[in-house]
């Protein structure tokens, strides 16, 4: 049975134009970040300064959408105050919830701003209700974002055993590793999502046309090599081709992205509270298109319940912006594992 509770569409807002695009096209919430390493999309040209954040909040609130702020990297001792200052600013600006991964920072937020709503970031790596309930008891988190590792039945098990709302990933880039538990990028480049808010950072990438094809390197390490006419994707290090036992293949994951749209009725039915679209690094046009399609899909799923089907026209729209990328159900579909 579908619950009568609202089911929220949470969309990426890398900057103000994307925020407006998401809100205008039906996002219930947008998630954002400040212009520094306090969030896990610390990319050049992305994110919000103070004035932009205030304007974004004003724009969203005027249209009944919420603004969430990702402060989901792990503060270190010498930079601790940058994160606490960001929490203070979030409370001051009227952010609707902060998305945190670090327990120390949650403790700070809870003590200093008891009215500020806390969401546990996917970077917190909480994959069971025991872990989620830990954060709820200790810091009063009201929502947890699940890492992209659980099968659908396992998601249901979590939902049934915690009072915290559960948010899951619906569409976009797919981390094949448990978020918050991956130091692969640090191993190759010295910078990882946990501490620097980046994975396979652009400054470590080098493209080189050679006799053997177009080579993509990360800090000198060959991540992939593309033959003529082959689409050359960004060298995210877990999505390259490597050799094992003399076989060359995508040893960890293909350059594919997540699309769980067909699971919408089930996700709603089992009591998941919100679905997240990945992609703060994507353009406003992308955000507009994806938000519009997912808004239509969620409204249809709420209306049609188990009769819901994914429309071909939606997929055509999504394929336009995701450049014909392969899609997968990821871990929701057990055989993927």
């Amino acid at each position, binding site marked *: 049975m579908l619950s009568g509770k609202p089911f929220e569409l949470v969309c990426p807002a890398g900057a103000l134009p994307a925020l407006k695009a998401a809100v205008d096209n039906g996002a219930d919430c947008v998630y954002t970040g400040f212009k520094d390493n306090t969030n896990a999309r610390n990319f050049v040209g992305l994110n919000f300064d103070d004035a932009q954040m205030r304007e974004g909040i004003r724009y969203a609130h005027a249209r009944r959408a919420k603004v969430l702020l990702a402060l989901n990297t*792990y503060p*270190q*001792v*010498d930079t*601790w105050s940058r994160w606490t200052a960001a929490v203070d600013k979030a409370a001051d600006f009227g952010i609707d919830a902060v998305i945190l*991964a*670090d*327990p*120390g*920072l949650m*403790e*700070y937020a809870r003590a200093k701003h008891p009215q500020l709503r806390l969401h546990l970031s996917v970077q*917190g*790596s*909480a*994959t*069971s*209700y*025991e*872990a989620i*309930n*830990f*954060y709820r*008891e*200790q810091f009063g988190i009201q929502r947890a974002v699940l890492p992209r*590792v*659980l099968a659908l039945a*396992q998601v249901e*098990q979590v939902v049934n055993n915690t009072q915290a709302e559960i948010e899951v990933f619906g569409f976009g880039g797919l981390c*094949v*590793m*448990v978020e*918050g*538990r*991956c*130091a*692969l990028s*640090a*191993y*190759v480049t*010295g910078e990882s999502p*946990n*501490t620097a808010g980046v994975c396979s950072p652009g400054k470590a990438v080098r493209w080189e046309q050679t006799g053997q094809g177009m080579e993509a390197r990360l800090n000198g*390490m*060959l991540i992939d*090599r593309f033959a003529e006419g082959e689409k050359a994707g960004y060298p995210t290090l*877990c999505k390259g*081709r*490597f*050799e*094992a*036992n003399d076989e*060359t293949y995508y*040893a*960890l*994951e293909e350059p594919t992205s997540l699309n769980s749209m067909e699971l919408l009725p089930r996700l709603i039915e089992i009591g998941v509270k919100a679905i997240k679209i990945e992609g703060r690094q994507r353009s406003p046009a992308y955000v507009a298109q994806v938000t519009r399609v997912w808004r239509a899909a969620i409204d249809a799923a709420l209306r049609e319940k188990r009769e819901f089907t994914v429309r071909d026209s939606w997929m055509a729209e999504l394929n336009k912006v995701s450049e014909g990328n392969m899609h997968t159900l990821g*871990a929701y579909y*057990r*055989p993927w*594992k």
Partner: protein
Amino acid sequence: MKLALGPPLYYWPRQQMLDFYETIAEAPVDVVYLGETVCSRRHELRLPDWIDIAGLLAAAGKQAVLATQTLIESESDLKTLRKLAEEKAFLAEANDMGAVRLLAESRRPFVAGPFLNVYNGATLAMLARLGASRWVMPVEMSREALAGLQASRPAGLETEVFAYGRLPLAFSARCFTARHYNLQKDDCQFKCMEYPDGLLIRTREKEGFLTLNGIQTQSARVYNLIGEIGELRASGVDILRLSPQSQHTPELIDIFRARLAGEMATEEARSRLDVIGIAESCNGFWHGKPGLDQIAA
């Protein structure tokens, strides 16, 4: 400084594992972490077996610690976790916050494992308040970052650093070893048993890149802080963790023990480790560099 042997990260046949710990009982190591921390499908040894081994090691004067599985997915994973948390005879290492919750509830001291993401004093103080008697630094943390944490370390809390072995870098829902054989995880045929030190993957230029170990991804290189013993000591580190490898683990312990006691020079220790190591060394993380870098002393 004390020496610890980390939990076994690979899947070895039962008898090999039992023989291994018979040998370790005789080795000059102070703390031994036990238990299956990587994959719930591995069952050559189960919790009662690990408890037996813990008893054997305790009788030999070691501190035996039962480590929890790092990635918890299913209700059956939680069942195992609860049983471990109720095992009061031995210290436990918590490798996720669900384990912290259960151990704190039972009011038992615990080790805050390397995957809890302790990066600042506030988090460390919170874990100490909940009962942590020791914490293990995240593998990617540098000497400088550690110094900041050590300065505000709660009284009585021990610090442990991963100092030797292929680095456990990532966990996934997916089994990459099964994937290599086009098998699904639920029907993996326990292929990881064919790789007692993991399955090396290389770049298309034949450079060692990573090591597949079931759902865990490790470094190709061996993290080796034998040249940094002095700095580790100066940083107030209490315990060095060595990660078990299928061959020569007792020699590895002996070399670190001799180096710690000042009975072996760094260069000799380094060259002996090169002989028994399963891959070339790296130490970048400690120096705030990419982990795979090898920084000259």
